[in-house]
């Protein structure tokens, strides 16, 4: 496939951006810099190939809407960080892995359960009388009550299209 060559400068730029965002919102990138940069190279290949930052360790469909849950940082990052100390591809890690106390182990892909979870969610959320709808950032769980979600999540910097309505007005 005709994918433009990714150069080191592109990788450093992307690294600096996500590292800054990670630090300001309380996350940590994998301290193994060469591994982390290899993951970023994969993300940049995916941006060239599909037009969005799809997870380098998952097979993207090329349809952004279908893959919105695996755009980095993915919808499963925080829950995998909680359970395994790392996100699926291990771009993000927790304190124990960062400090070398724990090793990254293979993580099963939660994505295969996403359709089931959608249905479960539906059953739990009803409509109540609200002045504004409640939006939830699917990446970090940030909630806000306003007509539309913010352009960028103030906590984790995920874009507007990563928000879902948790409660309708």
């Amino acid at each position, binding site marked *: *496939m005709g994918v433009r060559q990714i150069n080191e400068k592109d990788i450093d730029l992307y690294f600096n951006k996500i590292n800054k965002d990670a630090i300001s919102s309380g996350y940590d990138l994998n301290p193994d810099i060469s*591994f982390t940069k*290899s*993951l970023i*190279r*994969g*993300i940049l*290949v*995916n941006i060239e190939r599909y037009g969005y930052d799809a997870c*380098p*360790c*998952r*097979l*993207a469909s090329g349809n952004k809407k279908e893959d919105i849950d695996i755009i980095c940082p993915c919808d499963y990052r925080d829950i995998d960080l909680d359970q395994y100390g790392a996100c699926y*591809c*291990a771009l993000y890690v927790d304190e124990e892995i960062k400090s070398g106390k724990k090793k990254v*182990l*293979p*993580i*099963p*892909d939660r*994505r*295969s359960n996403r359709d089931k979870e959608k249905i479960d969610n539906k059953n739990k959320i009803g409509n109540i009388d609200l002045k504004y709808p409640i939006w939830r950032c699917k990446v970090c769980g940030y909630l806000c009550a306003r007509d539309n979600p913010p352009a960028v999540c103030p906590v984790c910097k995920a874009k507007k299209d990563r928000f879902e309505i948790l409660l309708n007005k």
Partner: protein
Amino acid sequence: MTVEKKHESGTKKGDVILYALSTCQWCRKTKDLLNELGIDYYYVDVDLVIGDGQKELTEEIKKFNPAVSFPTMVINERDSIVGFDEDKIREKFE
């Protein structure tokens, strides 16, 4: 039509097929480990296959790993190792 897989020659320890992604570092580590162990195997980077071939490969993977995650290693069309599980891979081939 079967999608052609690349061959890495080495010591034959069964029919080993590795389904991988070219962008995935855990797939890279799995290939490196198989190469280090000198195992004879076939691999395919599924993200580089376009059109029907990709669908065909995901169906192949599904039989062993319904989540279709990467890397998936299939041994003798029977056993599978999902993810870069270093201990399991070493145990299988050493």
